[in-house]
C-alpha cells in the first residue's frame, strides 16, 4: 500500500517536472522571438542555407554573394591550370594540403591568414590570376580567402568551388607532401 502511494507521488512529481520544463521552454521561446524581432540584430526565422545553382555546372555555397570573385567550373579551372599566368591557392589546412593538392598549388590556409600572408605574398603577383580552392562545394574557405585577398589589393581572383574533391575525382595532376608556401 505504502509502496503504491510512493509510486503515485513519484508519477505526479514527474508530470509536474515535465510541465515545468515545457513552461520554461515556452517562456524562453517567447522571449527569444520577441528579442529577435525587436533587437535589430535578429535573423529571419527560416534561413536560406542551401547551395545555389548559378549555371549548369556551377553550384555556389549559400554565402556566395553578388560581387564576390568569379566562381569557375572544373573545365575552366583545367584551362587556367595550363596557363603559366595562373597561381592556385589551397585554402585548406596544412595537414589536408600535405595529403594531396592540385599540382603546383601553394598552401594558404584561410584560418591562419595572418601567419601565412607574409610567407605567401612574395610568391603571388598582382598581375597573375589567382585561383583559390578548398575541399568542395560545401567548403567556403576559398571564398573567404579571396575576399581577404581582394582587400589586400589583388584583382584577378577566381574561386574554383568544385575544389579538391572534383579535381581529384577526374584524375587531374596532383601532388602530395611538401609545402611550397614554407
Amino acid at each position, binding site marked *: 500500500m505504502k509502496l503504491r502511494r510512493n509510486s503515485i507521488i513519484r508519477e505526479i512529481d514527474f508530470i509536474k517536472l515535465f510541465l515545468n520544463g515545457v513552461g520554461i521552454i515556452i517562456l*524562453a*521561446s517567447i522571449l*527569444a522571438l520577441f528579442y529577435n524581432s525587436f533587437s535589430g540584430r535578429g*535573423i529571419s526565422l*527560416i534561413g536560406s542555407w542551401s547551395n545555389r545553382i548559378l549555371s549548369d555546372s556551377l553550384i555556389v555555397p549559400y554565402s556566395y554573394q553578388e560581387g564576390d570573385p568569379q566562381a569557375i567550373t572544373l573545365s575552366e579551372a583545367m584551362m587556367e591550370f595550363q596557363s603559366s599566368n595562373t597561381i592556385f591557392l589551397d585554402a585548406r*589546412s596544412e595537414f589536408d594540403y600535405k595529403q594531396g593538392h592540385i599540382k603546383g598549388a601553394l598552401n594558404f590556409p584561410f584560418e591562419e591568414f595572418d601567419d601565412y600572408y607574409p610567407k605567401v605574398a612574395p610568391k603571388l603577383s598582382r598581375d597573375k590570376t589567382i585561383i583559390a580552392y578548398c*575541399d568542395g562545394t560545401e567548403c567556403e*574557405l576559398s571564398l573567404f580567402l579571396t575576399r581577404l585577398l581582394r582587400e589586400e589589393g589583388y584583382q584577378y581572383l577566381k574561386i574554383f568551388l568544385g575544389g579538391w574533391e572534383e579535381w581529384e575525382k577526374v584524375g587531374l595532376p596532383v601532388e602530395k607532401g611538401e609545402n611550397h608556401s614554407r
Partner: protein
Amino acid sequence: MRKGKTIVDKMWRNFKKIINNRYTLLVFRLILGGIFIYASLDKIAHPDQFAKIVYNYKFLPHSLINIFAIIVPWVELICGIFVIAGIFVQSSSAILSLLLVSFIIALSVNFFRGLDINCGCFSTDPKGKEEGAILLIRDFVLLAIGLQIFLSNLRRLNNAK
C-alpha cells in the same frame, strides 16, 4: 581482498557524501548555471554567427537552423538563471542535461565523420579532432554535474515526503 573492498567502499561513501554535500551542490549549480549563462550571452548577441555554427554541424534540416539558433540560447539563459537562483532547479537542470546530451551526440557523430566544425568541411586534420575531444570532455563533465543536481533534488524531495 576484503580490506581492498572496504577501502573502495569507504572512498565511494566519502565521494557520495562530498557530491551530495549542500555546499558542493551549490557550487555545482553556480558552475552549471554560470557556464550556460556565459555561453548564451554571446549567442544571443550574434544570432547570425551562431546559426552559421549550427549550419556547420550539418545536423539539422536547413529550415530549422535559424529557429534553433534563435531559441536555444534563450533556453540556456533562462535555465542557467533558474539553476543558480534556485527556481525550478529540477526541470532546469533536466533541460540543460538534455541539451548537453544532444551536443555530445552531435559532436561525437561529427568527430567520427571527420567534419571540421569550424569550417563545416570534411578534414582529416588531427588538430580539429583535438579541439573536438576537448569540447566533448567538457560537455561530459557538465553533464555529470547537471545530472547530479537533478538527482540530488529528486532525492531530497522524496525524502521530504
